[in-house]
């Protein structure tokens, strides 16, 4: 028994089909609990007022936005090294979720920044990095859709993903150097004591879990769609032959 056996498309379809219903239910539970708790139960922050409620979507979506790209990077490496088709297709599916999450993080950030900083947009390092990440997502998705041959597309997007990751890190550093910003530090960190208070913390954890699950569910469904498309393509190619 090896983990790699699930890289077989058929096995992947079977397994993901079994897991998906339970996973979807869990996603809904987590999201509803977290958002209800956060929106209706928690008090306003003494400094930020009711805008603190935005944290329940802003932070999880930003988290997913970055980690989706990270997952795509890992998937790209797996595809290039081990040539498992599911890996490349999962990266494609994840990019669709990632780009929307990036957009959500940007939009909620703008809504939050307007009352807090007095501006919808600032060329703050974090905001700028996310904007650049958004552009990377767009380029990646555009490259996928521009190439007809699926294996060529997988190869090229994988290389782009790896090169893009290096440049994304470089951009992050460059942007930091370019402008010291308004944005506060990371909301959640393991090594610091002064995290946000527990009142906001627990519903936020639920929301993060919900977003992570949502990302998983959507990526799985998307990967299933890609596998089916590839299978249909392979069958048509065989019929024609």
């Amino acid at each position, binding site marked *: 028994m090896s983990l790699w056996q699930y890289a077989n498309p058929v096995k992947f379809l079977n397994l993901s089909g079994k897991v998906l219903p339970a996973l979807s239910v869990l996603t809904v539970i987590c999201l509803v609990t977290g958002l209800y708790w956060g929106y209706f139960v928690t008090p306003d922050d003494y400094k930020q007022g009711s805008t603190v409620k935005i944290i329940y979507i802003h932070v999880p979506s930003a988290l997913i936005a970055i980690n989706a790209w990270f997952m795509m990077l890992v998937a790209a490496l797996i595809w290039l090294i081990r040539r498992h*088709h599911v890996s490349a297709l999962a990266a494609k599916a994840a990019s669709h979720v990632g780009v929307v999450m990036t957009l959500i993080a940007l939009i909620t950030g703008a809504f939050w920044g307007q009352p807090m900083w007095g501006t919808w947009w600032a060329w703050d390092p974090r905001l700028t990095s996310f904007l650049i990440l958004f552009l990377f997502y767009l380029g990646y998705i555009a490259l996928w859709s521009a190439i007809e041959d699926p*294996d060529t597309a997988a190869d090229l997007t994988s290389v782009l993903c790896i090169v893009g990751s290096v440049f994304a890190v470089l951009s992050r550093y460059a942007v930091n150097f370019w402008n010291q910003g308004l944005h506060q530090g990371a909301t959640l960190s393991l090594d610091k004591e002064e995290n946000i208070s527990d009142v906001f913390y627990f519903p936020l954890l639920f929301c993060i879990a919900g977003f992570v699950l949502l990302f998983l569910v959507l990526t799985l469904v998307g990967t299933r769609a890609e596998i089916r498309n590839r299978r249909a393509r*392979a069958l048509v190619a065989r019929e024609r032959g």
Partner: protein
Amino acid sequence: MTLTVSNLSVARGSRILLEGVHFTLAAGQALILRGPNGLGKTTLLRTLAGLQKIETGQVSVAPETTVYAGHADGIKSTLTVRENLQFWAKVFGTRDIGPALAAFDLMDLIDRPGGMLSAGQKRRLGLARLMVTGRSIWMLDEPTVSLDTHAVDQFATMIRRHIGQGGCAVMATHIDLGLGADAQVLDLSQFRATDPAPQSSDEAFL
């Protein structure tokens, strides 16, 4: 210098076109590929030249000894005939472009830019390129397209001289070049992929 191909499959896009292709070509021999359009002659030649992936099977030859001439001649329209040919000579590390020019009557056109050549003249220049590469195994895809009878004769002479010097040529052509016993003819129809099996990368999805 022999070229041995055994059990070779080649694919275009996501379809295997030919499978189980096998032949042996000794030094000083030419192989003429026959078969209807769309069978996979171009794909086979590109695979032999190392431009495309070998699906399965073995090709005994290193890509460093082959040279490929396809439908496009790779002629730059703003460079003269001399410059075009000299470039390839330099790239392949040879010097003398005189014999190649003489073999195809290109001496008079030597300072004419590539863009002012007719289709047949371009093709002659493209074939002359083969001579300056100094490589021994030629992969030629429809080399006689747009050549007149006189130029075809020149081409046949060039091929005869090349294989006379111990070189090899694999070409897809329908014209009889009068190579006699030095040329084998291989009908590729017999290798048409019977089970229209998809390319190996599609197999995972079936």
